[in-house]
């Protein structure tokens, strides 16, 4: 009973909360005391040099990686080893990967309706309708019957975004969504993401697209060597970085 009531009431707490999170790969300390709170509707952009733990951090949020210390709450539910809890959280959290990870043996449409029909138990007809609506929004409805291998990288990534949206997630995670794309395809993907942000989607986004970060970001997070070094609003972050490591990083990526 208590659970049902909780689920029905809108959760006024944070969308995602990481408290004193630690993670090790063997002896290697990848995440060191991470504290991060993401409000509903907030757009957080995470950047940092490679190997800084930023991907590992957002992969903890939907349990693709397991944290070993600290607490992680998603939409009020704590992530523990409880499988039911993990599946419940994954339903609400969409993820877009660097390498798209579309299912190559299914058509675009089948990719899109798989989650809704099997996880959310939405009737097939309704799932197809929703899927077409999202394909429309990422501007490739005509590709519905094709296989992922027949699409360009940019189109595949837009399909991947639509696939996540079909699950009607409350939070979207983006793990370097444009890093594997040819330059001319980056814009079409970023456009979709900007649109999504303008609709008020809660987003945590690992990216080096600083233009995008400036346009839509509410909070910039800079990570290095497994720590959050700096966390600021974008104007402050770009114009007046405080930490030396942040300055160095920004000078490197903004120099050309």
């Amino acid at each position, binding site marked *: 009973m208590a659970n049902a009531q909780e689920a029905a009431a809108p959760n006024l707490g944070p969308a995602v909360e990481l408290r004193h999170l630690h993670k090790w790969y063997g002896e290697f300390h990848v995440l060191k005391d991470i504290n991060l709170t993401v409000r509903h509707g907030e757009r957080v952009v995470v950047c940092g040099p490679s190997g800084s733990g930023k991907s590992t951090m957002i992969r903890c949020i*939907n*349990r*693709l990686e397991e944290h070993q210390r600290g607490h992680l709450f998603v939409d009020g539910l704590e992530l523990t080893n409880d499988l039911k809890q993990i*599946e419940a959280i*994954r*339903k609400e*959290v*969409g*993820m877009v*990967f660097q*390498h798209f*990870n*579309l*299912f*190559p*043996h299914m058509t675009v449409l089948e990719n899109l309706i*798989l*989650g809704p029909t*099997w*996880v959310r138990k939405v009737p097939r007809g309704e799932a197809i309708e929703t899927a077409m609506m999202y394909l429309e929004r990422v501007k490739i409805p005509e590709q519905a019957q*094709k*296989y992922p*291998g*027949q699409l360009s990288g940019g189109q595949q990534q837009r399909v991947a975004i639509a*696939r996540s949206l079909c*699950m009607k997630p409350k939070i979207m995670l983006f793990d370097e969504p444009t890093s594997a794309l040819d330059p001319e395809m980056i814009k079409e993907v970023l456009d979709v993401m900007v649109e999504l942000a303008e609709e008020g989607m809660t987003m945590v986004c690992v990216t080096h697209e600083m233009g995008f970060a400036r346009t839509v970001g509410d909070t910039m997070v800079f990570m290095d060597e497994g720590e959050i070094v700096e966390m600021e609003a974008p104007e402050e972050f770009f114009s007046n970085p405080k930490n030396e490591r942040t300055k160095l990083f920004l000078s490197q990526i903004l120099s050309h």
Partner: protein
Amino acid sequence: MTDTTEKHEDWSRPPATEVGIIGWLRKNLFSNWFNSILSLLAIYLIITTVPGMVEWALINSVWGDKSPEICREAKGACWAFIYEKHRFIFFGVYPYEQHWRPLVAMIIFLTLIFGSCVKPLWKLGWWIAVAWAVGLVMVGILMWGGVFGLKYVDQNQWGGLPLTLFLATFGTVFAFPLGILLALGRRSRMPAIRSLSVAYIELIRGVPLISILFMASVMFPLFLPAGISIDTLLRAQVGIILFGAAYGAEIIRAGLQAIPRGQYEAADAMGLSYWQSMRKIILPQALRITIPPMVNGFIGGFKDTSLVVIIGLFDLLMTSRVAFQDINWRPFFVEGYLFCAAIYFCFCFFMSRYSQWLEKDLAKGQNH
């Protein structure tokens, strides 16, 4: 030849040495000196052996209902032996006057198998399963009898081609899903399940099929309480299934490992449960990759069924051999083996071709 105008004319087409018969010969048979020697050697072998074989098998051979004496005098193959013994080779010691029963059963069985391979029929879905259920009941009634006025025939009397087909088909059909489970078990995160799977696979793979069959037939009954006995045929069948599953598991595991990690992660991120993601995402891709080695295994398994002779079952190979134990026909064992080999070849060749078609069909549209 060095005339420039002539050269220009030639440019509209590839040089004569690159196309047509000469081009083909150059490309395929005489591309370099080593290949040329091999080609000449092969041609020599064909010229020296093929005419002799044709003469033996077709021209000087004895066909139809002829006596062994005529065969002995002839210089060629004695197909009269096959004519005389074919019913024994096909059906073994099944009562002679009842041979129509295994014949009809085999036709039903083969219809089911080949029918299940036809793509347009796949959309019948569950009706295929219904057809199998009904078909197998009919096969059972025909083979055993004891109802509808059919004389009861004990399965100790089954033999020949039906026996080989049953052992191979059920061996494949049951070993395959068991192999999938073992492969998943071996990659499981749960230590108990993983070690059990590893132990099973390594144990069974480390032992020859003959010894498994032998143990199933000789040692296993020793452990059963007195009064309970499990039929030899069933024991052989179980032995074949358990053996095939261990090999299949390793093939499938290779397929599972070939699937990129991103596929598992995308399925997880979507909230699919373990079994959902295996069924919808991982296995469809993994099994497609493993079609060639898997069919290799099926073909091997089909031929391995001939080992059941060690526990006294009369499969196709054994009935062929028993056929030329007949004192009158003893010299004609070559014909017996050839006939038997031809039957094996038909089935194995079908499996091979079918798998190639299936591979291509499943790949449609998925690649660039």
